[in-house]
């Protein structure tokens, strides 16, 4: 196949060379259709391709595939482990919450118990105190009553004396103390009744 693209007088020398060179190949046409080279091409292709196939099949694919497989396994393992750890953590959280609730319940029971004990103690103490106070009050009341009756007694005596004196001064008589006392008694009951 001869192809001369451009031909000028300047490139005449080159052109002749090209023509000669092209003419050489024109005889054989397309190199691809030169069947005499087929056995050699196919023979060496078989050697090269066979070697490549063996190298890949026996050596390189197991090595690269193994590394990829290992990584996949490792990642899957790690994910499994993470899932397991998460489940464990969840369990721990549940257990913790349960413990916490139990502790809270126990604490409130203890608090209630303590409160009851304290209340009881407090009640006891306050009743004791009150009893003592009542006693003291009663004693004081008794004292007051005594003092009062004494005072009343004195008042009666004084009244008797005053009445006696009054009668003696007004009537110029010495009154019988017995009658005087009866009269006073009568007067008091009458004033109390009104």
């Amino acid at each position, binding site marked *: *196949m*001869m*192809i*001369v*693209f*451009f031909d*000028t007088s*300047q*490139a005449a020398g080159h052109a002749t060379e*090209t023509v000669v*060179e*092209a003419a050489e*190949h024109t005889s054989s046409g*397309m*190199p*691809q*259709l*030169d069947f*005499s*080279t*087929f*056995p*050699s*091409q*196919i*023979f*060496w*292709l*078989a*050697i*090269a*391709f066979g*070697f*490549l*196939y063996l*190298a*890949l*099949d026996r*050596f*390189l*694919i197991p*090595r*690269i*595939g*193994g*590394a*990829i497989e*290992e*990584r996949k396994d*490792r990642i899957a393992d790690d994910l499994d482990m993470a899932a397991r750890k998460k489940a464990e953590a969840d369990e721990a959280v549940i257990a913790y919450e349960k413990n916490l609730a139990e502790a809270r319940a126990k604490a409130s029971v203890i608090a209630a118990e303590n409160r009851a004990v304290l209340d009881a103690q407090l009640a006891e103490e306050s009743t004791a105190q009150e009893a003592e106070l009542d006693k003291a009050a009663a004693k004081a009341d008794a004292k007051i009553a005594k003092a009062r009756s004494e005072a009343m007694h004195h008042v009666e005596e004084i009244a008797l004396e005053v009445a006696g004196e009054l009668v003696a001064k007004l009537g110029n008589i010495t009154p019988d103390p017995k009658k005087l006392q009866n009269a006073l008694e009568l007067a008091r009951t009458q004033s109390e009744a009104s």
Partner: protein
Amino acid sequence: MDPLHQFNIERYGEFHLFGMDLSFTNSSFFALLAVALVVAFLAFGSRKRALVPGRMQSLAELFYEFVAQMVRSTMGQEGFRFFPLIFSLFAFVLTTNLLGMFPYFFTVTSHIAVTGALALMVISVVLIYGFSRHGLKFFKLFAPSGLPLPLYFVIVPIEIISFLARPFSLSIRLFANMMAGHALMKVFASFIVMLGGAGAFSVLAILPFLTNTAVVGLEFLIAFLQAYVFALLSCIYLSDVSGEHIGH
């Protein structure tokens, strides 16, 4: 300036066996170089087998996972026995395609002999796997169940023809893409050189230069895409004869 010159097979060392010319050529050299690069890359990337991968290991694993995903999505877990085959195909085609992008490097996959051999190998594996797994029920592949009877007279020939066309489409697609792309780059490169030497017109050389820059980018895409397509179609052909598509 012959754009096909780059596809010439050059003998580096004569080697004859059983009357066949098995000489070591530029094709042999670049095929072996591609294999050496792939093996070195993957071996270096996986040398540490670290739990947390470094840069090279990440790249190797990315490469691995890309192909593994392709196999898994087309063939499922059952097809994983073909993973080394698909991985080899993808790595070999991709590396030889990309090596071809270097100037003066030979593109192994630009030859129909190579792509044809690879395609025939794939179809052979499909046939061997299909027959070993399903026996004569393998032929059910050509007669999908659940169709009205008259349709079978149309469907069966179509299925057979499409099956027979597979090795051709698989091999020609790759070889033609690589060859056309590289020839195109060479043609535009020739334009640059010739316009550059054309005196007053030499400023015009910028046009094929810009075009060629774009074409080179496109060719990198095609180098990857064709390797991907080759591997993916191999997966699909294999999945056709795996359990799911041929009922029992």
